C-alpha cells in the first residue's frame, strides 16, 4: 500500500518486463491500430504497410499530447491535434514506421533545423507476436521473449491455440472490457497465479448455482463434484522467473460436460482432436491454468478463456483490462454461448469475478491502515515442501489447493525487479542450474 513502493514498481519493474499489449487479431490489416497500456504509459499497437507490428508510445514528442485518442481504428498517419506534428507508419514515406513525418511550418518556424529522424514516437525496442499474443518491452537489454517466458510457454500455447489444438487458432472477441477497482494490482496477479485455496470459500455461491458449462452439480472448471474438490494429480507450478500456474501439464482434464447437447458434441470432438494431436507430439494435455505471466498478465486457457492485465494506477487502485478469446473457426452457436458465458463469469458484470473483486477491494482497504501495515501477511503454506518439476526452473506445490510457493516466488522475483537488479543478475538468479537459455539473446 506504499506509494514509494508503487513508484519503484513504475520505475524498475514495468519499464523492464515483457508486458501483454494486445492480440494480433485486433490489428489484422495494414494501418490498423489498437490503443493499449504498458504500466501507466499509453501505447499504440500498430500494423504498418508491410504487415509488421509496432508498439509506439502514444505521446507526442513535442509537448506530450496524446497523439491518438481513439480506442482503435485504421490510419497510416497519426497527426497530433495540438500543434500538428504528424507521424507515419507507412514504411515508404518514413524510414521507420512511427517516425516523425510532418512538422507544420518546418521551414519558417524551425528554419529547417529540426531533424525529424530524431523525433519519432518512442517505440518498444522488442515486440513479439507469440501465436497472436502480442508482448512488448521498453527495455532493449531485456532477454528475448522465449527466455523470459521459459517453460511457462506451454500455458501460453494452451491460451493461444484453439480448443482442438490448432496452433495460434484463436482470436479475440471485439471489445476489451476496462474497469477500475480500488485494489493493489498484485492482489489480482496473485489470485490467478496459483490461489486455488480461495475457490471453495470465495466461489462457493457461484458453484452452488452451477455457473460452469455443466450447470448445477458440476464444478465450474470441469472437475466432478464428487471428486473431493480436485481430482488426483493436480498440483500448482511455480517458475523462478516469477510466472505461476494453478495446475500442471500432466493434470489432464477433459473439457467440461455441457448441458446443451450440440455444445457437448462440439467440445467433445475438439478435445478428441486435441488429444490425438498432442499425444502424437508427445505433449502432455494439461495446463489450462488459471495462471499469471510475471508481472501482471493473468489468464485462463479453458472455461472461460480470457486474458486480464492489471494496470497499476496507484498503490490502492488498479485498472483491469479483459480480453476474451474464441476459436477463429468456432461456429455461431459456440461463439454465442461462449460470449454469454464469459460475460456472466468474468468482467465487471461477471459473477465469479465479482466474488474475487470483493476480496481484493476489502483486503486492500483493510490493509491500508497504519496498524494493519505493521503485520505482514502469512505465506507459509507448503513452505519447504515444494516438489521438483521436470520443467526448467520450476517447482510444484505439494498439494492441489494448498501450497503458496507460487506467491512466494512471485514476490521474490518482484523484489528482484523492484530493487533494480541488473538483467545479468536477474538472469543468473532465475537460470536453472543445468539448462542453457532456449534462445540466443
Amino acid at each position, binding site marked *: 500500500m506504499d506509494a514509494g513502493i508503487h513508484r519503484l514498481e513504475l520505475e524498475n519493474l514495468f519499464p523492464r518486463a515483457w508486458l501483454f499489449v494486445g492480440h494480433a487479431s485486433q490489428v489484422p490489416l495494414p494501418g490498423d491500430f489498437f490503443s493499449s497500456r504498458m504500466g501507466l504509459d499509453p501505447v499504440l499497437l500498430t500494423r504498418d504497410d508491410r504487415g509488421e507490428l509496432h508498439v509506439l508510445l502514444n505521446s507526442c514528442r513535442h509537448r506530450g499530447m496524446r497523439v491518438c485518442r481513439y480506442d482503435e481504428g485504421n490510419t497510416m*498517419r497519426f*497527426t497530433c491535434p495540438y500543434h*500538428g506534428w*504528424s507521424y*507515419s507508419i507507412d514504411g*515508404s*514515406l518514413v524510414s521507420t514506421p512511427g517516425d516523425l*513525418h*510532418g*512538422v*507544420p*511550418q*518546418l*521551414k*519558417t*518556424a524551425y528554419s529547417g533545423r529540426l531533424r525529424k529522424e530524431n523525433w519519432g514516437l518512442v517505440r518498444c525496442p522488442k515486440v513479439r507476436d507469440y501465436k497472436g499474443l502480442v508482448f512488448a518491452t521498453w527495455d532493449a537489454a531485456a532477454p528475448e521473449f522465449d527466455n523470459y517466458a521459459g517453460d511457462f510457454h506451454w500455458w501460453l500455447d494452451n491460451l493461444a491455440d484453439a480448443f482442438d489444438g490448432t496452433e495460434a487458432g484463436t482470436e479475440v472477441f471485439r471489445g476489451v472490457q476496462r474497469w477500475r477497482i480500488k485494489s493493489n494490482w498484485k492482489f489480482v496477479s496473485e489470485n490467478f497465479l496459483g490461489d486455488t485455496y480461495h475457490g471453495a470459500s470465495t466461489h462457493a455461491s457461484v458453484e452452488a448455482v452451477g455457473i460452469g458449462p455443466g450447470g448445477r452439480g458440476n464444478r465450474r472448471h470441469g472437475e466432478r463434484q464428487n471428486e473431493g474438490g480436485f481430482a488426483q494429480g493436480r498440483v500448482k507450478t511455480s517458475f523462478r522467473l516469477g510466472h505461476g500456474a494453478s495446475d500442471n501439464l500432466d493434470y489432464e482434464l477433459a473439457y467440461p460436460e455441457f448441458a446443451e447437447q450440440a455444445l457437448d458434441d462440439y467440445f467433445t470432438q475438439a478435445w478428441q482432436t486435441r488429444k490425438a494431436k498432442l499425444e502424437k507430439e508427445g505433449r502432455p494435455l494439461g495446463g489450462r491454468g488459471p495462471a499469471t505471466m510475471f508481472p501482471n498478465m493473468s489468464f485462463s486457457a479453458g472455461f472461460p478463456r480470457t486474458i486480464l492485465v492489471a494496470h497499476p494506477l496507484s498503490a490502492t487502485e488498479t485498472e483491469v483490462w479483459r480480453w476474451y478469446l474464441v476459436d477463429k473457426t468456432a461456429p455461431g452457436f459456440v461463439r454465442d454461448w461462449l460470449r454469454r458465458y464469459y460475460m456472466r463469469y468474468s468482467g465487471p458484470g461477471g459473477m465469479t469475478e465479482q466474488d474475487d473483486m470483493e476480496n481484493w477491494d476489502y483486503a486492500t482497504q483493510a490493509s491500508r491502515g497504519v496498524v494493519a501495515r505493521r503485520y505482514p501477511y502469512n505465506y507459509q503454506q507448503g513452505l519447504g515442501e515444494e516438489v521438483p518439476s521436470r520443467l526448467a526452473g520450476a517447482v510444484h506445490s505439494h498439494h492441489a489447493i494448498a501450497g503458496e510457493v507460487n506467491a512466494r516466488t512471485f514476490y521474490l522475483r518482484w523484489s528482484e525487479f523492484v530493487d533494480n537488479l541488473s538483467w545479468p543478475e536477474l538472469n543468473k538468479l532465475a537460470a536453472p542450474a543445468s539448462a542453457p537459455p532456449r534462445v540466443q539473446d
Partner: protein
Amino acid sequence: MRIHADLASCQGYGNCAGTDGKHFDLDDDGFVVIRSDRVTAEDNQSVAEAVRSCPAEAIWLVADDD
C-alpha cells in the same frame, strides 16, 4: 493530370517541396507554391509521392479537363 493545392488546408509542413522540388516550393510564409502544375509521365511517381506525403492532404491531382 495536373496538380491542385488547397491553400486553406496547407499547414506549411513542406513535405511536398522536400519530396519533389521540381513541382513544389514554399513561399516566405512556408506555404505551398506550385512551380509547375503539369505532370508528365516520367514525373508521375515523384509527384504521386509528394501528394501522398502531405499530412494535411492539401494537394491532389485532377484530370486535365476539370
